[in-house]
């Protein structure tokens, strides 16, 4: 990762840890934000290709329910999380083989449809999923250690930060690689890829499966943090939330998703409680404003304020 990313990444990580140390309840909020940041990184890859999925909460739910279903048999988080990511990958590949044939409207809406089908199955197949009651997840061990609540929460947060840094670095490498650089071609004119001997569908499929794996992993972390999973995880509002965070953070950098997710979760803790029935409306209005007036999101604002000014000096 180049210095322009590494510096704010480590500074941000330090700030998150400092804030969490000063206000204990923030550990939970930040861990959830980092988990969502992972999923939003996947949304960002798809947005690079000009595609938007209104159904990626599906993969969050797949990851979370994988943890919930296997937790009675597997007690170790270092196994549970890879399983969650693997489940996301497998479902992502199956769905992706179908949806990667489509673009734009179809791509967005087919994803929405798949996630809503999954939601209704989670709700209706009570025998396996306990329906809307959801499933409790016993706190797993971490590297063989059964931790007390405070230690567990700290480990989750630090682990989440480490994962975010590592995967953020990998994502930036991916975006710079030929495959990542080919993504924008899908947005503008994908026949150019075909004439270079490359299947545009396969390029999109790779990005899609990566995004599903990231969301699956994020879902696993969410299940291990909230210790309770419900069908609501795959409801459309949560897919919308991921898209919202991606746009809020801005598509210009792999740090955008984490910046967006942390700001979003902090605001949500207060605002969603104050306006439970108006929260989506606020999100929708802010989304409209960003799209119409500040298309590069928070990261774009950061670039304008800090990087441009720094370069001029």
């Amino acid at each position: 990762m180049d210095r322009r990313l590494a510096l704010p990444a480590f500074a941000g990580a330090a700030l998150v840890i400092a804030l969490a140390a000063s206000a204990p309840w923030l550990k939970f909020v930040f861990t959830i934000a980092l988990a969502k940041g992972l999923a939003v990184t996947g949304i960002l890859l798809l947005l690079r290709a000009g595609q938007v999925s209104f159904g990626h909460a599906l993969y969050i739910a797949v990851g979370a329910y994988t943890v919930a279903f296997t937790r009675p048999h597997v007690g170790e988080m270092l196994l549970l999380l890879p399983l969650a990511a693997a489940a996301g990958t497998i479902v992502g590949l199956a769905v992706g083989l179908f949806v990667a044939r489509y673009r734009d409207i179809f791509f967005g809406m087919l994803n929405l449809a798949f996630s809503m089908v999954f939601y209704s199955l989670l709700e209706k197949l009570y025998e396996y999923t306990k329906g809307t009651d959801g499933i409790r997840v016993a706190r797993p061990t971490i590297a063989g250690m059964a931790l007390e609540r405070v230690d567990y929460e700290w480990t989750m947060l630090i682990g989440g930060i480490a994962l975010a840094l590592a995967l953020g670095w990998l994502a930036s490498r991916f975006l710079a690689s030929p495959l990542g650089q080919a993504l924008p071609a899908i947005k503008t004119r994908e026949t150019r890829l075909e004439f270079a001997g490359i299947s545009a569908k396969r390029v999109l499929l790779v990005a899609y499966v990566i995004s599903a794996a990231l969301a699956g992993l994020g879902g696993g972390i969410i299940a291990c943090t909230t210790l309770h999973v419900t069908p609501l995880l795959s409801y459309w509002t949560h897919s919308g939330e991921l898209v919202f965070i991606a746009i809020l953070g801005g598509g210009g950098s792999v740090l955008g998703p984490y910046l967006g997710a942390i700001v979003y979760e902090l605001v949500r803790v207060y605002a969603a409680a104050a306006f439970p029935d108006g929260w989506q409306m606020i999100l929708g209005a802010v989304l409209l404003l960003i799209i119409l007036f500040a298309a590069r999101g928070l990261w774009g604002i950061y670039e304008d304020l800090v990087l441009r000014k720094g370069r001029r000096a």
Partner: protein
Amino acid sequence: MTLLLFLAILDGLAYAAQVFMVAVGLTLIFGVLRILNVAHGSFFAIGGYVAATLGTWAATTALAPALALPALLLAAVLVGGVLGPVIERLILSRIYVKEHVLQLLVTFALFMILEDIQKLTWGVQPIFQDAPVRVLGQVEVGDIIYTAYQLYLLPGVALATLLGLMWFLRRTLTGRVIVAVTEDREAATAMGIDANRVYLLTFTFGTVLAALGGALASPTTSLVPGVGVNMIVLSFAVVATAGLGQIEGAMLTALLIGLGRSVAVYFAPEFEVVIPYLIMVAVLLVRPHGLFGRPELRRV
């Protein structure tokens, strides 16, 4: 068994009629504006809520029974006539030239806003107003007693909408202008057609249809948060299975999906929601552009 199947078919027809009203607006708007309005399902929901509110008010007046049915139409015209032009002029008209992904995001944002407006206005408790069903009474079909509202009125309105729309698009000047814009926007504009007016008109009309679908559905379903999202994904399934922009095709796939769903309701209730999408995925696997859709030529 046969009785259940018969009942499922009657339910399916009534349901298909409702879905068609929403889907046909969605596909018409797409055909002309080239925008898939994710908020289209919200017009269905708001149409339903306003109809229920109007119906409850009408029930308190002296003309109670006579007003029940006109209230449905009034609700649709009110919702579509106000929301349609406002949204088209204020928001959509700004994004016609933008990237597809931004257009989708904008209508998705609208969808988020409209979903909460419903919650803030009508609360989260189920709302139900069945005066229109009671006005028309019941009829006997073989061994089954069924409501005249679902047996005659719903399919009747849907059929009238389809025929009316086909007549309008083929035989009237305005209709042919709309078709011209659908087929070749640049050529139509060059001929002096005011594309902006066509967009405004089409969007408003499509919105009225969705709201009418909601108004017609309100006496037989209780309105709760989430009816809008269910309807947008379902009507998208109908429209995608038929092929985007296909009007007659949408009627056929609405029937296919409506019947498939209601059969599932009686025989495999857990899979009620899954059936429509299974049908859609099965069709799209064989025909990627829908049953009646044609692939758009790729640009070199």
